[in-house]
């Protein structure tokens, strides 16, 4: 042994069991920080990936600017790529088509497709000449096109001949609307525009999109461009989502989100610091005698402090890599899940990604916290009097001023409560760590509300494919539905008949309603929305219907609605739904009835729309076959791409946000179990002495439960109060600010976390109790 500090590894070997808990706490704190920051990092990466894929990798767009202004913008050193982007027939009302199908015409520079979109070209290349174009994949499949083929585009002023230079992947808009897309060069597009639109506008219905270098300050650059070119706010639009995710947005909503993220970041940091500090505190408290003995032999207070700090850093050697390693593995698992759940969007997520911000923060927070957290108990240890070590008695005695109160509680409970409160510092740390878990949970739970507001979930009735009557009439044959039901790629097929603006009389007042027929599946899905009445009756009894709630007035259950179109027929309202998937104008109500009732009322037998849900195994080929079977008579709306996008967002949001919540819940349990275990360990000798005096196991349990409950009650109170304040603050920043919804006390979230705390306390007392029972009274007493 060369130095007194060589005692550290020897002491570590001897106190392996005691130290294990402190090491575990550091591992847990480092793990928490690494995982939360890693998840946030991966979440942002996944969102950037999806945003670039769906909305494009551009940062700002300019409208109504001249060629000269565009040239000045593109010449700036911060600009990485720029392109004009113009569109014709976007809403399908301008009369452009290709072989009878609606056609959306776009014009841009090559950089729009190659730099500002992700993997758009599936085959071929961007057009080199003005009469060349990229065609959407669905047109290729439908018309069996090849590169070099000539196609004739129908326009309001006649046909234009285009040579195909390549193909573009399908986008949800064209697939849902059953239309084709074609991409020309900017010049080619403008040439058609001038001829067809007879518009002298210099802007050609085009917007100028710009992608900046990620290294520049985009916000400042945009302000600079606006000032330099004298552009108004209306002429400039940011890609808010992407800039927000890149941390470059000046958008006020994004600033609120950044503020919220900062608060959550601070809370996580505090949780980490608190966990490590309380564990070191307990560890030192257990070994006061040893430090006293060191002082007695001649160690200076400074040397004792150094010893404690070195010991704490010794734990870090294992704890920090273990915490970081465990955190990285959890992040890998989450990324793998994301890739598996939504490969269309997240296949680009690295399988074994290392999130450097999370690893660095895990290491730094672990090491710095240990350093600062070790100083306070180290100071305490250095202050232990040599006399205390010699006598071996005084240092174990409680030096407070007040005895435990046995007036209100039985002795075991009173002692438990007193143990919890006897050391102010320890009590504050324990209550702090309990309440911080609750605060973290309540703060992060706002992100679930945020997700539910920001994303519209897929409903169970969402179809993969809809076959729609072009003029919204009941013109799709019943037989088609039967054929589709038998198709092996189809999981569910269901049709609806619509009659719009049907005149009715309700209580003698003339009104109009949309009448919609449901079948078995749709009635089944409506179950969750039934406010009152019976779905059985409307399905089985003719001339019955369901009303859909509308604030302007809804027929009530028991009301009779008289249909007055051809002949007067009375329909009894037998139920009310809170909402339906259909939107209509303010003063038009909705009545849902069975197919039989609909047919009797209107005389129509065919469907307005047939929805298909496909099996998971269904391929593009299956869809093409269905499309061919349906023919071009109806609109074939393929909604799979749009659905996949919604699912992708849900998976990435859900995985990370529920991941955060689960992690916080687990950390709460671990932290409580560990804190109680350490607190009990610090008093182990005292408890064993209690057993010698006559404290039974049941009483021991009551005493530990009382101690743990004191922390839980006080921690629960402060955690709930502060947690609700944070919840309100974050809710207002993230939700009220944008969607206007007012904050309400989140009773469910509060109940869940308090439930978790109670369960954790119940689990926490069992471990130490078992250990106390196993310890020999004789050995412990003679060690004193």
């Amino acid at each position, binding site marked *: 042994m060369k130095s007194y500090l060589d005692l550290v590894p020897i002491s570590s070997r001897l106190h392996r069991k005691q130290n294990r808990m402190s090491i575990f706490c550091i591992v847990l704190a480092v793990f928490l920080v690494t995982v939360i920051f890693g998840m946030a990092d991966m979440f942002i990466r996944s969102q950037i990936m999806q945003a670039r894929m769906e909305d494009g990798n551009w940062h700002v767009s300019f409208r109504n600017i001249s060629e000269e202004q565009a040239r000045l913008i593109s010449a700036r050193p911060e600009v990485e790529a720029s392109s004009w982007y113009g569109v014709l027939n976007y809403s399908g009302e301008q009369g452009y088509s290709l072989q009878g199908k609606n056609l959306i015409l776009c014009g841009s520079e090559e950089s729009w497709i190659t730099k500002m979109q992700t993997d758009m070209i599936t085959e071929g290349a961007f057009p080199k000449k003005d009469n060349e174009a990229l065609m959407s994949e669905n047109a290729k499949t439908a018309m069996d096109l090849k590169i070099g083929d000539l196609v004739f585009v129908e326009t309001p002023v006649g046909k234009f001949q285009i040579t195909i230079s390549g193909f573009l992947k399908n986008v949800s808009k064209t697939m849902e609307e059953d239309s084709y897309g074609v991409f020309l060069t900017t010049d080619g597009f403008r040439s058609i525009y001038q001829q067809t639109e007879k518009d002298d506008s210099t802007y050609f219905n085009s917007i100028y999109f710009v992608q900046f270098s990620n290294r520049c300050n985009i916000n400042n650059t945009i302000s600079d461009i606006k000032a330099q070119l004298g552009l108004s706010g209306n002429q400039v639009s940011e890609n808010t989502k992407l800039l927000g995710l890149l941390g470059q947005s000046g958008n006020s909503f994004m600033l609120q989100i950044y503020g919220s993220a900062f608060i959550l970041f601070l809370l996580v940091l505090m949780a980490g610091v608190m966990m490590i500090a309380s564990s070191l505190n307990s560890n030192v408290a257990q070994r006061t005698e040893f430090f006293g003995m060191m002082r007695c032999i001649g160690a200076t207070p400074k040397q004792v402090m150094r010893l404690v700090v070195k010991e704490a850093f010794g734990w870090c050697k294992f704890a920090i890599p273990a915490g970081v390693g465990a955190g990285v593995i959890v992040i890998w698992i989450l990324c793998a899940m994301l890739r598996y759940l939504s490969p269309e969007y997240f296949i680009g997520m690295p399988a074994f990604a290392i999130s450097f911000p999370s690893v660095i923060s895990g290491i730094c927070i672990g090491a710095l916290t240990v350093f600062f957290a070790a100083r306070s108990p180290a100071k305490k240890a250095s202050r232990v009097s040599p006399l205390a070590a010699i006598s071996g008695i005084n240092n174990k005695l*409680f030096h407070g001023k007040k*005895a*435990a109160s046995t007036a209100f509680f039985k002795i075991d409970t009173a002692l438990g409560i007193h143990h919890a409160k006897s050391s102010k510092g320890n009590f504050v740390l324990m209550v702090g760590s309990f309440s911080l878990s609750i605060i973290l949970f309540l703060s992060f739970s706002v992100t679930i509300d945020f997700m539910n507001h920001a994303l519209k979930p897929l409903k169970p009735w969402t179809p993969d494919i809809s076959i729609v009557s072009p003029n919204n009439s009941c013109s799709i044959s019943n037989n088609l539905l039967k054929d589709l039901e038998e198709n092996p790629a189809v999981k569910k097929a269901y049709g609806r008949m619509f009659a719009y603006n049907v005149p009715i009389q309700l209580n003698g007042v003339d009104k109009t309603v949309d009448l919609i027929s449901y079948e078995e599946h749709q009635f089944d899905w409506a179950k969750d929305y039934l406010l009152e009445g019976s779905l059985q009756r409307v399905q089985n009894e003719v001339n019955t219907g369901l009303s859909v709630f509308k604030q302007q007035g809804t027929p009530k259950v028991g009301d009779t609605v008289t249909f007055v179109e051809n002949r007067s027929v009375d329909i009894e309202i037998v139920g009310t739904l809170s909402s339906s998937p259909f939107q209509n104008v303010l003063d038009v109500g909705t009545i849902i009835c069975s197919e039989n009732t609909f047919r009797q009322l209107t005389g129509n037998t065919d469907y307005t729309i047939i929805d298909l849900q496909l099996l998971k195994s269904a391929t593009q080929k299956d869809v093409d076959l269905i499309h061919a079977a349906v023919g071009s008579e109806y609109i074939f709306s393929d909604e799979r791409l749009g659905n996949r996008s919604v699912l992708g967002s849900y998976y990435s949001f859900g995985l990370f946000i529920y991941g955060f919540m689960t992690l916080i819940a687990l950390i709460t349990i671990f932290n409580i179990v560990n804190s109680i275990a350490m607190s009990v360990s610090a008093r182990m000798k005292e408890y064993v002495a209690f057993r010698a*005096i006559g404290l039974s196991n049941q009483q021991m349990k009551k005493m530990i439960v009382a101690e743990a409950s004191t922390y839980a009650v006080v921690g629960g109170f402060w955690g709930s109060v502060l947690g609700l304040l944070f919840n309100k603050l974050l809710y207002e920043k993230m939700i009220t600010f944008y969607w206007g919804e007012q904050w309400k006390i989140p009773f469910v979230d509060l109940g869940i976390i308090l439930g978790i705390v109670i369960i954790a306390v119940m689990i926490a007392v069992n471990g130490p109790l078992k250990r106390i029972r196993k310890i020999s009274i004789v050995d412990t007493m003679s060690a004193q």
Partner: protein
Amino acid sequence: MEVLKIQHLSKTYGSGESRVEALKDVSFTVNQGEFVAVVGESGSGKSTLLNCIGALDTPTYGNIYIDGNELLSMKEEQRTIFRRRNIGFVFQSFQLVSELSVEQNIAFPILLDYRQPEREKVDEILEVLNLKERRHHLPSQLSGGQQQRVAIGRALITRPKLILADEPTGNLDSKNSRDVMDLLIRASRHYQQTILMITHNMSLAASADRVLRVSDGILTDLGGKVDEKLS
């Protein structure tokens, strides 16, 4: 009347080469009101004997009867309750509950039974122990001698038939030692209690009615006064 009866008590630690026989076939009885001192070298087995009698340790073999109750046939919980009601302990290191006042420490075994201590009883013990002025003090505010007196008070409060004292004066100076011993003897005579006390101090052992000597785990009953037999 027999308060304590020990039959063929043996205690073995370890196995194989490290096997140690701490007690070897120990048998003896103690009558009510007797004050018995147990003497012996360090490591002779006297503390093991006391721990086994107090149900803090389990013997390898043998029987222990306290007031006719077979201690070792009881379940752990039952034994703990029996101990706090029928055996008073006085430890060398006092083992007071540092968070409780003098009064509460004395009443501790009664409080553990979820009973209200009788005020007169507590007052009487405080009077006997000369701790009336200090009834609201915490152990940390007392001297070593005072702390041991509190421990004796705790051992007396349930009026147990048997008091086990493991070197009760080991941490005290000679004056305090003498005071504590006087108190212990006075109290046991007053309440007709049986005392089994381990001590290294021969002059303290001299005040006992009977002396047992433990050597290498074997117990020898020296009978009468220690100074007569040991000299």
